[in-house]
């Protein structure tokens, strides 16, 4: 039977996870909006660079993050069900709620390592992006557009790192709750 503290920890992790994923998703949207305003010559370069170095296009990142956010929501709801069952001290209900939690968490448990690895790739890409953008010659990107692009990215790396760390933490907490 799962411990109440572990379930509470999982609920908090899911809350933070939803917020972190939403924050990073907004960063991707903001970045895409800035890229759309770039000159026609530079726009596809930046798009292609993101895809080539982060493994996915901006649209694919958005889809992935939407699904991840929704998954955190599903696990959160299921974990709340386990917490309520534990409060009632009803073993049958706890077992049923735990099974529902296991089902809800299965896709994340299965893909958490790949997702964390992907967030690590994105984090590394974002870390080096400002320097890379500043290397683009004026012929491709004028100085003001370059500055606009770089200044649109404060906190991106940290947000990517936060999602990665939460994925690892979620997997760990889920394992102990489900195994318990």
């Amino acid at each position, binding site marked *: 039977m799962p411990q109440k503290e572990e379930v509470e920890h999982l609920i908090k992790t899911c809350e933070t996870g939803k917020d972190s994923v939403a924050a990073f998703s907004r960063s991707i949207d903001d970045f895409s909006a800035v890229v759309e305003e770039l000159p026609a010559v530079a726009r596809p370069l930046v798009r292609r660079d993101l895809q080539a170095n982060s493994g996915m296009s901006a649209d694919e990142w958005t889809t992935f993050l939407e699904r991840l956010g929704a998954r955190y929501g599903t696990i959160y709801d299921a974990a709340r069900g386990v917490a309520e069952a534990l409060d009632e001290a009803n073993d049958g209900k706890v077992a049923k709620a735990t099974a529902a939690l296991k089902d809800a968490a299965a896709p994340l448990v299965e893909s958490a390592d790949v*997702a964390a690895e992907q967030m690590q790739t994105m984090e590394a890409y974002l870390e080096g992006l400002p320097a890379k953008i500043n290397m683009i010659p004026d012929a491709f990107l004028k100085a003001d557009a370059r500055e606009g692009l770089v200044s649109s990215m404060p906190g991106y790396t940290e947000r990517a790192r936060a999602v990665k760390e939460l994925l690892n933490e979620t997997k760990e907490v889920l394992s102990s709750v489900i195994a318990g």
Partner: protein
Amino acid sequence: MVIYMEDSNATISEVLANLQSIFSGVESLGKAVEFGDKVAVPIYQFNFGTGGGGGGGGREKRTNDAVGFGLAGTIGPVAVIILEKDVPGPGGIHIHEFKANKLGEALAELMLRLWNMVESQIGGRTKLSAEKKEKLMNI
């Protein structure tokens, strides 16, 4: 060129429209030229224009109707891309335009090809397998 014919304006219009759609505003890469530590790739723009007209004349019972069209075009260099062999990354790519023009997406496509060449030399591409991508999209 003048062609004497009757009731052929529609056909001629169609031909002219097709010619214009094929040739107008086409940009093309020229042959790369190496000189020392640099490679120059010229970009040409093709501008084709067409025109046509018709008229009638003559005397009663001896009319003389005709239509005609013309095709003229220019091909000229609009820009040159200079690649510096010893400078890795985008810093080694320069574009020099010969006149103000909007090459827009066509130039962007060219840049992508150059970018790919640079990337293939400096590495850094991250391949994501289809299996991993599927996992991410179904998380």
